[in-house]
């Protein structure tokens, strides 16, 4: 029997297990998933919890029920991966799991402990985050009671999971405080280490006005060194300061500590792999998928989904000594909630920046690329059902894994509408 071991039962790990359980011969293969928790979180839903749009029940399911028959699930914590001996040591319960092939899908975690002052006496009082289940629930309680003031959203450093979520949070906050009747008493500020809220040329051109219209101020090129929790200030390395009444931070994102303990990660514990095949350049039986991988695309469920589509096709060839023919192109698409029942959609890959157009049907949509619409908002809300019932089960979505240029409007094509929007 050959053993495929998958570390992490999140979006990428669950999809890989379920897809391969149908593609690999059960008489020849065992597929085992290890995860430390019994609960699967629908992480994109965390964004909606602070505003009371989703409740806890909307974003959790018992992990066990999500695996196909034939996939073995072990609840445990990875201590270290011994890549030379092809073994994974678990702590709690202490156990050693040998493997023939290993898929690392241990994700990315927020690390407020990495910024001095963040996780001290004001943590979950005047300093919040929405990237964890507990954090999103605590922030929901805070926002219900908040009487207004200066709300600062800040990103400590990139890469982060779902890079558009901080912008979505701000635009939803604008809507939320309007609904609460206190928008005039709330100042919304986005503090980012990048050169602006939008850094890609077309997105900056087409979306730059959005934040201005919503009264969201951007403080660019701000590298947070520490938080002064008593003075309620963010302090940058170059001594710039931003004061807040309520800080919603996106802490530094890092890969799992077990990656560092195993000597398999980069400076942020992400696993360097080939960006087209996810194979480790050092260990020919180790792959890394999803947020755990150090790839120059977004850390997002959609990127993981398209990556898994390529990976499973390659894997069944690779184990038979055949060439990996499918090349992942960095494809991702993300809904961007913009408040008041509307959303944007972006579709991009390693080489093509987000462009305006229609998706998935060229010219028809119904979703609009780089442009606000109600259809996008409904798309985003419907996506939760798709996630639980289609994506995780490894059912095929009628969307190609590779990005398509059909339906996208580039300069000189696509007619007047784009010219009009871009002008």
């Amino acid at each position, binding site marked *: 029997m050959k053993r495929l071991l998958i570390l992490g039962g999140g979006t990428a790990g669950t999809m890989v297990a379920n897809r391969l359980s149908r593609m690999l011969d059960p008489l020849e293969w065992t597929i085992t998933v290890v995860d430390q928790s019994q609960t699967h979180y629908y992480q994109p839903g965390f964004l909606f919890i602070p505003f009371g749009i989703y409740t806890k029940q909307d974003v959790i399911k018992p992990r066990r029920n999500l695996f196909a028959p034939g996939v073995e699930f072990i609840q445990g914590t990875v201590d270290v991966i011994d890549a030379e001996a092809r073994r994974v040591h678990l702590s709690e319960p202490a156990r050693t799991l040998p493997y023939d092939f290993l898929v690392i899908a241990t994700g990315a975690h927020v690390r407020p402990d990495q910024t001095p002052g963040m996780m001290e006496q004001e943590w979950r009082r005047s300093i919040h985050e929405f990237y964890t289940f507990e954090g999103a629930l605590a922030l929901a309680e805070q926002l219900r009671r908040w009487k207004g003031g200066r709300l600062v959203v800040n990103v400590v450093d990139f890469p982060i999971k779902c890079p558009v979520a901080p912008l979505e949070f701000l635009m939803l906050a604008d809507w939320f405080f309007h609904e609460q009747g206190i928008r005039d008493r709330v100042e919304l500020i986005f503090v980012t*280490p990048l050169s602006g809220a939008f850094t890609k040329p077309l997105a900056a051109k087409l*979306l730059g006005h959005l934040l201005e219209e919503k009264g969201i101020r951007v403080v660019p090129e701000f590298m947070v060194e520490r938080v002064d929790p008593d003075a309620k200030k963010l302090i940058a390395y170059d001594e710039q300061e931003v004061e807040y009444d309520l800080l919603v931070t996106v802490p530094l994102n890092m890969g799992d500590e077990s990656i560092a303990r195993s000597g398999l990660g980069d400076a942020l514990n992400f696993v360097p792999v080939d960006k087209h095949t996810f194979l480790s350049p050092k260990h020919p039986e180790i792959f890394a998928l999803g947020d755990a991988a150090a790839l120059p695309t977004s850390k997002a469920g959609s990127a993981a989904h398209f990556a898994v589509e390529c990976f499973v096709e390659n894997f069944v060839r690779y184990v038979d000594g055949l060439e990996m023919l499918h090349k992942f192109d960095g494809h991702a698409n993300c809904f961007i909630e913009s408040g008041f029942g509307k959303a944007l959609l972006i579709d991009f890959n*390693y080489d093509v920046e987000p462009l305006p157009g229609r998706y998935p049907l060229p010219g028809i949509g119904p979703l609009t690329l780089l442009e606000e619409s109600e259809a996008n908002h409904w798309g985003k809300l419907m996506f939760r059902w798709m996630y639980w019932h289609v994506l995780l089960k490894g059912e095929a979505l009628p969307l190609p894994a590779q990005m398509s240029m059909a339906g996208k409007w580039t300069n000189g094509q696509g007619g007047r509408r784009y010219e009009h929007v871009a002008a």
Partner: protein
Amino acid sequence: MTTKTIEGFTVEVNEEGFLVSPEQWNEEIARAIAREEGIEELTPQHWQVIRWCRENAVNGRSPTLRQITAGTGLSTKELFALFPKGPAKKVARIAGLGKPEGCV
């Protein structure tokens, strides 16, 4: 995208004055861009950072500050002293790489 002549070399630059192709870069161009950025002389420490970023660029994009500090052993404070006000962007420009970007 426009072409520009720096120290006698014709290079393609984007709207913000970043080199479009990392291959068109050389050390003389780096010195000239550094002067535009207010850094009169590039010290061995500057070069250490520039070379590390060029070697560790992904898709022609400069690494993030945290990757630079981990890779070079310099602290973030030291990077701010070497490349004042926004070292990530400045290093990228001087090294002929793209600045770190988000997905939109």
